[in-house]
């Protein structure tokens, strides 16, 4: 029975781990469905009135919304006729015909945002963005960290010095400053950019751990034994040592998914994240401050709920994975 199978059996006995695994799977499935266009494809449609309240809150909030709408009514003209009034009326008439504002719903299942978009659909679409960013960036960081750590730890010498120097440079800069600096250099908005930013700056912790593991394993007898039968350096590094440290990579990978989901939120909140044509939990939160002042809490609630559940489930899942993989080798 291989060690992976044993680990899986240990994992199956962990109730909390299983529950969190199911939640993580649901999230991933949701993100996949959203990416395939089966759900939330129409998230950008302005289906409700501006700040449409959740359906279960009913009319009292509707009044507030109506009040809000009243403030944008035509102002007092002081007897001066608007020279463009006719053209404006024409444009508004044609716009009304095209988008059908009259068919907008006054309430939505869990409310709408400023443009009347459904926050539930936004949250689902945001899940896709955030998970893609989290997973891809963590994969990139884990790949870089493992590769650098393997080379530095296995060979030692000048390679080790070089990567340690690189590590020191990256860790000596405050994290947020570094992230913003890379964002400024890349000077583009979009999911790929965010993944690159997080992946290129986030490998350091994994590097440090993997380097230490390689330092420890390269002098182990099984590696010497592999050397004795003529296995090449690359084979020893990746076929022999890597499977023995892969549980660490795996745990770090899922820890970093959580970390990067949160980082993406921060980036988007600060305006360095995804572009205006995409939605993420971070960009939803970025819209929240101005809404909260008006008492419109549903967008921040939707984003926070989705994020908190995902992050908690992922963290618990990571803990269980770590417990299951802890190799108690006889």
């Amino acid at each position, binding site marked *: 029975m291989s*060690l992976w199978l044993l680990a899986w059996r240990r994992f199956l006995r962990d109730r909390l781990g299983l529950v969190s695994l199911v939640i993580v799977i649901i999230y991933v499935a949701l993100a996949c469905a959203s990416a395939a266009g089966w759900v939330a494809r129409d998230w950008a449609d302005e289906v409700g009135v501006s700040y449409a309240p959740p359906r279960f809150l009913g009319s009292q909030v509707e009044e507030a919304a109506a009040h809000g709408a009243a403030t944008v009514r035509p102002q007092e003209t002081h007897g001066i006729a608007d020279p463009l009034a006719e053209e404006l009326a024409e444009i508004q008439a044609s716009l009304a015909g095209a988008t059908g504002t009259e068919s907008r719903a006054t309430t939505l299942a869990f409310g709408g945002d400023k443009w009347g978009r459904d926050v539930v659909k936004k949250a689902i679409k945001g899940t896709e963005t955030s998970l893609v960013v989290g997973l891809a960036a963590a994969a990139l960081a884990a790949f870089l960290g493992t590769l650098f750590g393997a080379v530095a730890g296995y060979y030692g010498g000048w390679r080790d010095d070089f990567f340690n120097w690189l590590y020191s440079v990256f860790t000596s800069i405050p994290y947020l400053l570094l992230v913003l600096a890379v964002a400024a250099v890349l000077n583009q908005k979009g999911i790929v950019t965010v993944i690159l930013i997080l992946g290129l700056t986030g490998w350091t912790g994994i590097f440090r751990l993997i380097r230490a593991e390689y330092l420890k394993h390269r002098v182990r007898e*099984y590696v*010497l034994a592999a050397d004795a039968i003529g296995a090449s350096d690359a084979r020893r590094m990746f076929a022999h040592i890597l499977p023995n440290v892969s549980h660490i990579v795996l745990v770090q990978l899922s820890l970093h998914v959580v970390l990067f989901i949160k980082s993406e939120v921060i980036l988007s909140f600060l305006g360095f994240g995804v572009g205006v044509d995409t939605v993420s939990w971070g960009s939803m939160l970025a819209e929240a401050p101005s809404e909260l002042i008006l008492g419109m809490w549903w967008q921040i609630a939707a984003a926070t709920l989705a994020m908190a559940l995902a992050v908690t489930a992922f963290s618990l899942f990571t803990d269980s994975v770590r417990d299951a993989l802890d190799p108690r*080798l006889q």
Partner: protein
Amino acid sequence: MSLLSVRNLRVDFETREETVRAVRGISFEIPEHSTLALVGESGSGKSVTALSILGLLPATADVRGEVFYEGRNLIKATKGELRALRGAGISMIFQEPMSSLNPVFSVGFQIGEVLREHLGLSGKASRQRVLELLGEVGLSDPEGKLGRYPFQLSGGEQQRVMIAMAIACEPKLLIADEPTSALDVTVQKQILELIAELQRRRRMSMLFITHDLSLVGAVAEQVVVMREGEIREQGSVAQVFGAPRDDYTRMLLAARPRLDAPSPARAGGKETIVLEARGLAKNFDKVKAVKGASFKLAKGRTLGLVGESGSGKTTLGLLVARLHQASGGSALLHGQDTLSVPPKTFKRAVQIVFQNPYASLNPRFSAGEILMEPMRIHGIGAREVERRSLAAGYLAKVGLPASALFKYPHEFSGGQRQRIAIARALVLKPQLLICDEAVSALDVSIQAQLLNLLRDLQDEYAMSYLFISHDLAVVKSMADEVMVMKDGEIVEIAGADELYSDPKHPYTRTLLASVPG
């Protein structure tokens, strides 16, 4: 009147999968002022027995039965009572002195702690007592040792400190759990003498736990032989060793290689030299690990290499296998400098078996993968199916069934793992096999089987062995020629029988005199 009496002691460990019955109803008595030896191989339950006396087992252990000490049943004693007893009435010495001492406290502080806890001594009185104790356990310069930290002491000195802590409160019973297993043979002798002398002088009783039968005669009057949680035989040392009644005891006594047995040394004649070392040297920074080793090894012969830890024997083995780069000198394989032999050719000619079978097999590879890897690298066998059947063949050679192919290292015992490691070396049909303490980590009965296997394989494949070990008796049972190493230097090379019967170098004589039994 016995000081400690164990009656029908049972210890079970509950795990998720199963209940491990570590000790299955054993009874023995330790009389006052005498020593009982508890002997057994790994997994026999001897350490568990010792720990259960002091209530030191983890909570997962289910302990039943009775352990009477001065009329009190220790199994039913409260935690507080046991704590008061530990160190004062009964104290214990462990196997690994390095890991039993706290590395961040000085030696004086750690011994003083025992005195503070149990006797309430402090200040000058405590210091005075610590100095007396350090003197009593034979440490030179006790004043100077007081402020030292464990890492500044040698293994033997550390074990002396542990003994000083154990006897600090004048216990009536001393439990020594493999106190010399981690030590070199010369140091082992000194520590054994010290323990035996302290036992006599202080009129303590002692429970001496060991896997090494040859130590028993030197310290104990009574002996208990354990296997798989049960007592196989007990009685006086003279009776058990002189006329063992139990098959297992007889097997244990027979399996142990003896110094007085003849070596298998074969007569010289026209020999082809497989390997010749000329002044091989290795420096690690300023430390000279190997200082110019020269020797010759003939085809089909075994060259033994003995030495204590730190003598450089493993480094020399790794140099010969080219797993370390030599700092000086050269090695010739069939008269050709090994550095000019292409790596792949060299690796096929020279293979190595390491000491620890738990560490030398990749835990993520199945036995089949372990054996097929060298075939893939060296292009042995055309297809996967062919390689698999070859691997099964080698497993059969080392006495393992073909079903072992799909199992992983953690599913094998230590002896079986070492068989896999030997099979892996065989795959390349080497001319020279380096055995670096290849049987040292194994129980004596398993050790005997593997030594036989190695002898059979040597005859079949006409391999030469460089046989490295700290155990002089094991080396004698294998080698045609033996070299003795000390501080990186080969101090003596001679034919096996000659070296053991008529050692020339003083160090060789010291080594031989230290061997117990």
